[in-house]
């Protein structure tokens, strides 16, 4: 059990953790000032016979100081945060060479679509969904989709390469969340949302659904495997061959 944030597994983790630490320092100083101040006052100014309280209605300079310092601090924090926010979530933030993976969320499973050798994902449409033969609603008319590979509840990706998750939901709002990647994005029916990240450490991770989606919400888990590029290519080749042998549930 960590007492701190989870291990860093993506390029976002370090800047986000740094922000978290800065905020902890700022709030920590304030916390100590207030709580120690309160405890000190409780003892120093407690009622004793013969004591009288100091009659004052306030101090304008005090008001100015303790308004200005928090305000300036908040502005600085905002400027620091915004750059990172735009880099992660901005409309134009997805790197051009990001490897696309379709992430289709439904009660209570994650379907991952990998572009085949053509490197492109086929179109999907909710009206084409068939629970058995076409769970993500892949459009058969789109040639880019004929070599796509669908896998239930398993996300595989190569390390040190930007990946863009193309998120759609079938029914209710879900949320794609991998703690070590510091990635979270709600998946909304009727919307196609792109969420990009770059994993930095090979290994096994988990996707948790992070928006209440019904009674199976707690069980909506997927396994994430970050491979080296060679291992990923080998894995993809093996799955492609498997897929030619027939549909995989």
């Amino acid at each position, binding site marked *: 059990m960590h007492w701190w944030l*989870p291990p860093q597994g993506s390029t976002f983790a370090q800047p986000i953790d740094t922000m*978290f630490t800065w905020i*902890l320092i700022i709030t920590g100083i304030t916390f100590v000032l207030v709580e120690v101040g309160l405890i000190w006052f409780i003892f120093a100014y407690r009622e004793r016979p013969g004591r009288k*309280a100091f009659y*004052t209605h*306030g101090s304008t300079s005090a008001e100015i100081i303790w308004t200005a310092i928090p*305000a300036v601090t908040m502005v600085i924090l905002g400027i620091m945060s915004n750059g990172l926010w735009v880099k992660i979530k901005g409309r134009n933030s997805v790197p051009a060479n990001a490897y696309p993976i379709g992430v289709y969320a439904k009660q209570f499973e994650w379907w991952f679509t990998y572009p085949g050798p053509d490197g492109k994902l086929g179109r999907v449409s909710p009206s084409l969904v068939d629970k058995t033969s076409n769970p993500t609603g892949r459009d058969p008319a789109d040639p880019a989709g004929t070599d796509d590979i669908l896998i239930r509840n398993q996300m595989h990706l190569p390390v040190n390469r930007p990946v863009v998750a193309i998120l759609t939901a079938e029914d209710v709002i879900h949320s794609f969340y991998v703690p070590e990647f510091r*990635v979270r994005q709600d998946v909304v029916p009727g919307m196609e949302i792109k969420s990009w990240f770059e994993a930095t450490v090979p290994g096994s991770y988990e996707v948790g659904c992070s928006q209440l989606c019904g*009674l199976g919400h*707690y069980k909506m888990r997927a396994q994430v495997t970050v491979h080296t590029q060679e291992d990923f290519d080998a894995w993809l080749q093996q799955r492609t061959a498997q897929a030619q042998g027939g549909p995989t549930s």
Partner: protein
Amino acid sequence: MTTVAATAHAAHAHHDDRSFIQKYIFSTDHKIIGIQFLFLSLFFLLVGGLLAMQIRWQLAYPGKPMPFGNLLPETMAPGGILLPEYYLQLVTMHGTFMVFFAIMLLLVGVYANFLIPLKIGAHDMAFPRINMASFWSAFASGAVMLASLFVPEGSSRAGWTMYAPLSARHDYSGAEFGQEMWSISIILFGLSSILGSLNYITTVINNRCAGMTWFRMPLSVWALFITAILGLLAVPVLAGAAIMLLFEQILGTHFFDPAAGGQPILWQHLFWFFGHPEVYILILPAMGMVSELVANGSRKPIFGYHSMVFAIAGIAFLGWIVWGHHMFVSGMNPTLGSSFMVSTLLIAVPSAIKVFNWMGTMWRGNLRFHVPMLHGVAFIAMFTIGGLSGIFMAATPVDMFIHDTYFIVAHLHYVLFGGSLFAIFGAIVFWYPKMFGRMMNEGWGKVHFWLTFIFYNGTFFPMHINGMAGHMRRLYDPTVYDFLKPYQPMNEFITICAFLLYGSQIIFFVNFWWSMFKGKKAPLNPWDDNGLEWSTPSPAPHGNWETLPTVYRGPYEFSVPGASEDYLPQNRKLPTDRDPVMSPAAGH
């Protein structure tokens, strides 16, 4: 209500020939209505807490039969093992009961009603019959919400935030009519709240007694007044959204259905546009009352009274333009993430101003640690933690990580429990003599305070750690995830503290009920306080005063140099005081 009858023996303001039903059941007296709200909301506080105990059991011991779980029907907990759909109902109903029926009613329903006329020198509210309607519609609303747990397939279960499409469709959630009942209950609650707000606003504007200028009003009245404005403008949005949701559920509309051109995120915008001002409704009255408790306990004027008023107004105003911080990862345009971050960071400033001013009030005071003061100081200490944790969420990249985790749960409980509920406990003890003519037991009050304070921190502080680990909200069984398994000992620790916390409240409830019959009879001004409410007997008679008081000074004239006592009530006329110029609208 009969208990009030047993202790009410003060002189009548004027000839009172109301029947028992008129006096205590369908009463138009703001004090009785306030007490009715008190009984109703304390009931829901207990119920909400009981639901929380079940949630905590399941989190600490997933899948194990709960003690007394065999009393629950098979549809909720077969063999005592909570079902996932029941767990989600618990989570939804805990939030709903606590936010609407416990905290809102305790802060506004009780204290706006009870205190406003007494503290501004009025006989009653501007619209006494509308006031009565406000209570009974809240009562009906609560009954519907409680009943929804017991209809076939149970209550709604999409979280108290009710996100569509999950909340709109039976086939997605598994609920049946219970889902509609949430919407119906909220619409009724909205009616109650709006009627109340109309009353409070009108009364404060029109019914202040002679000399009670705006800037001589106690901060509790300022807070309740501004809260009422927030309520008047925000609650109709919730009611409207609930009506849209009800139409979605029973008329087959498609506001939130993307297959038919609707937008799921629309619900979130509507809900949080209400929801954010709502959380300020849940804290501002508490802040106002804390000012009374801390000034009284410090025997000192409030430090920076005008700043405090402007801070309340600032919080209320900024509260309208921050709602998107609940939606940073919702899929809304990321540019909105930037704008809402700015406004959210700014709203920390007026809250900080208030904390520093309370500290300034205590500084060089002559601190008297009666039970209300203990609660007031605890409010300052705990609200600070809650407010500071909010800054992590305001920073969008960090929020991406802690959104929908236990970090948020920790934050909201620090402000709602550590903040609002501590203030409420303090307020109940402080104004208990005014309500019932007797004092609550001071010794047991202190025991209750300390036990609550310790177990409350034991319950909610570790949730920050779980949240940092990524522990998501509303999970029936966290052990499904390998990364969460190591946090089960923490979950167990939290649960044990939670059980002890709930158990400690027995002391409060016994004290509350016992003191009503056996408590020490209250003197006229038991706290040596300056408010107008202490210038009339306890409990106050119908109509409060025969002749309305006149006000000569502000509300916090404690320890005035040269005065014989360390307090100076607002209505006490000194030889140096002049009578205020009477305006036509003033009291009679």
